[in-house]
């Protein structure tokens, strides 16, 4: 089959395996880890500030919240869907929670309601896909515009200042447990939990089946429509959670927040081995993808590379990293 186009040839298989295969699967992520290590070594020579605790902390903070969205997107991609609305939904969660808070509701309830509303958006999208039969792409594009519109409507386009949020709420975004920011603690636990669930739980196994071959899944008695709706809802819900954390962190809600986030998030998942045609992907890989993207950006800023060169370098590194990863993966699987 060497002659054929190997569109997805390099993407990972993420099913739990035993023995050799399990080690191989780990090695898929090992490719990305290797690239990251190389980057870290290079950077620690290039800048004395790179390998400092503060910089590591800062870099982690830079992708931790978006990482939550990456998790949702990866699961959705595995099920065969895609969601362009995540950036808008993040903003919507911020704005709605902020608006409710200013209307006098306590911030925890306001946040819960906002996250629920995001889940509602996910449900609406999921039903459009399964009931009407539209494609995820076009449905989420429409909801990306609608959710953004809702943000504008709620705020009149103006950012909402939430300086009055109580400190225990702000703790979510700004607090630390010991020296480690709460955001990072939350993020790490969250990622490990979802990585475990995705590899092991029967519920998420059905997501793989559905994404790999929806027809065969239906012929295995899996209610694929429910799986699709559930993953869509999950992705929107996690975007909502991320929105609330951002709100706690910035102490404000911006209706224009998260524009363009979707491409970044999808890119992270794909770098980490998720397939755009469904059935493949891992949380760990996707998060490594997000880390790669973020560390490259942070490094360029740290080195004070000219703005005009940054994009070119970022794009090239992205390309080089995925090519190298694919190369490693191919060699290993031989």
């Amino acid at each position, binding site marked *: 089959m060497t002659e054929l186009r190997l569109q997805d040839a390099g993407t990972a298989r993420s099913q739990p395996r035993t023995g050799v295969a399990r080690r191989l699967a780990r090695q898929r992520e090992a490719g990305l880890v290797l690239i990251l290590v190389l980057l870290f070594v290079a950077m620690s020579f290039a800048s004395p500030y790179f390998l400092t605790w503060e910089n590591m902390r800062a870099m982690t903070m830079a992708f931790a919240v978006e990482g939550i969205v990456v998790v949702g997107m990866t699961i959705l991609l595995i099920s065969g869907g895609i969601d362009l609305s995540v950036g808008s939904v993040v903003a919507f969660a911020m704005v709605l929670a902020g608006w409710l808070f200013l209307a006098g509701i306590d911030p925890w309830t306001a946040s819960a309601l906002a996250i629920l509303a995001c889940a509602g958006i996910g449900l609406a999208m999921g039903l459009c896909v399964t009931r009407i039969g539209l494609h995820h792409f076009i449905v989420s594009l429409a909801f990306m515009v609608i959710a953004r519109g809702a943000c504008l409507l709620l705020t009149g386009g103006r950012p909402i200042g939430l300086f009055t949020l109580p400190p225990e709420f702000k703790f979510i975004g700004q607090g630390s447990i010991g020296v480690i920011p709460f955001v990072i603690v939350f993020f790490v636990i969250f990622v490990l939990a979802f990585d475990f669930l995705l590899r092991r739980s*029967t519920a998420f*196994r059905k997501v793989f*089946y559905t994404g*790999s*071959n929806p027809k065969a899944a239906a012929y*295995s008695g899996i209610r694929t429509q429910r799986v699709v709706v559930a993953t869509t809802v999950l992705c929107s819900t996690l975007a909502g959670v991320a929105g609330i954390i951002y709100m706690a962190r910035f102490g404000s809600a911006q209706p224009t927040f998260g524009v363009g986030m979707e491409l970044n998030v999808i890119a992270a998942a794909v770098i980490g081995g998720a397939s755009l045609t469904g059935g493949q992907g891992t949380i760990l890989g996707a998060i490594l993808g997000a880390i790669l993207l973020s560390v490259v950006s942070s490094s360029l800023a740290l080195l004070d590379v000219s703005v005009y060169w940054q994009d070119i370098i970022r794009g090239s590194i992205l390309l080089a990293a995925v090519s190298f990863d694919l190369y490693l993966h191919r060699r290993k699987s031989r």
Partner: protein
Amino acid sequence: MADDLVLRISNVSKSFGAIQALRGVDFELRRGEVHAIAGENGAGKSTLMNIIDGILRPDSGEIFLNGAPVEITSPARAQELGIGFVHQEIALCSDVTVAENIFMAEINASRKWFMDYAALHARARETLAQLSPIEPTLLVRDLSISSQQLVEIAKALTLDCRILILDEPTAALTEHEAQLLFGIMRRLAAGGISIIYISHRMVEIFDNCDRVTVFRDGRHIATREVAEITPDFVVNSMVGRVLGKLYPPKRDAAAPPPAPLLSVAGLTDGKRFRDVGFTLGRGEILGLAGLIGAGRSEIVKGICGLHPVTAGRLELDGTELPIRSYRHSIDNGLVYLSEDRKGDGVFIDLPIAANVSALDLRQVSSRWGTVDAEKEAEQAGRLGDRLGLKRGSIDDPVSSLSGGNQQKVALAKMLSVEPRVIFLDEPTRGVDVGAKAEIHRILRELANNGVGIVVVSSELPELIGLCDRVLVVREGLLNGEVAGDALTEENIIRLASFTERTVRPEGESLRPEGENLH
């Protein structure tokens, strides 16, 4: 004699990772002969054909065409060299019309700038007329698997080739279409075209082929004139041992009729079939026969909740079972094995183990709702061994298996749950003789344990050898039933083809002829 050799394969080897698919294989093809290749699933037949067609490159070895060494680098090159190939796995462009699929290679090679659709459709209609009147303007996605198989064959017939490779072309065809194909093959061979014919059906090989080559475990075992040997010889050299009986003993016909397990009444979908009713006994193996497109698949899918029905009643063990969804059917012990292995039978990119466990994950999960990888591997290993699955690691994707072995994975999936009624649509498609006998044995064993089994098959000997009773479907209606001594090919064919397009007034008795046959 030497100039009679069109194709010579010398010492070809090919491996996929750890799996050695071909080990120094030799093969010779003469001008104008029909040369059968036989071998167990995973023996390397398709791999060799893929090498001849330029889809795969051999690790070592040489290919000679008309005495001259050639390097076949791509299917395009193979076509230039006059090699045509009907693939075991259907590979058609489903978004494109039948006509364009048939003439794809020609369109590709054409120097014309624009398409002449009128001529294309006319010619496609002409080609198809030799096999089955499929409308050339339909999209391939709207065709049943068997029709797609016919399109795949028609595609090869249009090629201006000197060597034609047919890799299990009849696996999804009924007797009628298969006979048409054999007629065409003989005509082509008479015209000097050499044909490589791969099949697991000994009858076909012995009725239609001149020579036969047997492979085992990637090795060339023997090449003989068909006239000089018996089927048993072929089977024995394939399997490497003497095989017992092909079919297990049937239910004792003298025994009292089985207690009814599943009864179906008035099943109608408003399109493909209507007023279907029958009763399946406990421990009975019931066959469904019919021509391509008779609606057999739809009927069984309808019973399982995989195809919408407008009316109909099911009774399982005496209690009514509403048709809701396939999940509901599975939970009540009804399972269905699809005829479209690749389309909806297996998850081609997922590991073998994950495929086998898909029907009921609870069996392989821990108390906490997490999949237990060891249990899963154990289950797949056990069922795989039972079916003689030839595989690498249990974690390899199904795509790394040979066609017949993929079918075994689909079967293992069915057997993983403990169903009360099993519907099997072409269960032994592409499965080798040995494994087939084993599958039949397993089915009979299940039946003896009280499971009801319905087999849809286009292979009449299988229906006759395996089933206790066979229902014949014609144009969406049950047209009759044969059992016991009346269970013969002639009777089934007669019921299946009857007079063409007779319109039967609604409500008239459905099986007068069947009654007569008892």
